[in-house]
């Protein structure tokens, strides 16, 4: 069983709810655009990735890239922001209160995952080696667990580097007398 959430949304002025499942890190990052350039090609790649995240996550109602636009641009954006906040991808927005539901894993979550995008490979490998797992096990973690662990690891690595730099500076100061 995997975790799912009931997210609120407004469609045609009516309050409604949709059930989304928590994707694995591999499913979440599928098609993730690496570039941050403000070009139409990158905007297009980002929109397609976001559409993909929603299509993979929404379980009730099920949507496809063809039926997702039926939500309208505003409801799509609100749903995406809520999902990103709930799983910890977007930390600027406060996550809405959600009802947690148990769902069965999708067949896609069990198939061989695609390789992580280049900018996330180090995080996967470091997390795996630090906690004694195979990188694929880390890559199959629910996205919220993966993001939490990766953020924690980056923070602790930054602290370690800062402590090493302080120790080096003190050693240099002692050497100079």
């Amino acid at each position: 069983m995997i975790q799912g959430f009931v997210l609120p949304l407004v469609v045609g002025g009516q309050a409604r709810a949709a059930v989304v499942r928590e994707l694995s890190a591999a499913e979440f990052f599928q098609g993730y655009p690496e570039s941050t350039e403000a070009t139409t090609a990158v905007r297009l790649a980002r929109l397609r990735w976001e559409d993909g995240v929603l299509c993979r996550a929404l379980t009730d109602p099920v949507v496809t890239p063809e039926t997702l636009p039926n939500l309208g641009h505003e409801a799509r954006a609100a749903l995406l922001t809520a999902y990103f906040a709930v799983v910890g991808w977007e930390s600027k927005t406060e996550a809405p209160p959600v009802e947690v539901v148990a769902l069965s894993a999708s067949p896609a979550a069990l198939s061989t995952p695609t390789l992580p995008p280049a900018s996330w490979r180090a995080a996967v490998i470091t997390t795996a080696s630090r906690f004694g797992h195979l990188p694929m096990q880390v890559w199959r973690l629910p996205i919220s667990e993966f993001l939490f662990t990766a953020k924690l690891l980056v923070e602790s690595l930054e602290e370690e580097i800062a402590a090493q730099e302080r120790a080096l500076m003190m050693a240099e100061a002692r050497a100079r007398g």
Partner: protein
Amino acid sequence: MTQRLTRDELTAWGRRDCTLPRLSGDLGPRTVLVRRIGAATYLSFLPPDPPGAELWPEITDTMSDEEKKATQAFRAAREQEYLESLAPKEQAARLTAFRSVHLQVIAWCAIEPTFTVDEAKDLGDDAVGLSHQILEFSGLLTPAPAPQGSA
């Protein structure tokens, strides 16, 4: 407990009848049933950006309608400058590419009746208006303000 969104509701919410003013004037009320278009699909229809467009301010969801319009106007002015800098043949090709965006939007979104890109040309003046209605319905175009002094 909030009611779950059903697939039927989603389908109904994603469709609308759009009027064709010119044809309606000639033949009596005429509409086309359309579906919404996603931002990614619409963006894929647009011709490539002019060089340096990555530095222009972008229209974002967090902007107010006024900010969106101002940014839209800024981008349109830069696009116009770029167009005027092109050789006549390239200029004509770019204008044709922009005009065909409206036809592609109609071909993608029209449900009843359906249109191919070529068939959408038969809509004449109504093509641009219909494409704008679809983009407004999809939330991708800010509706034009009502003319000053209108009721």
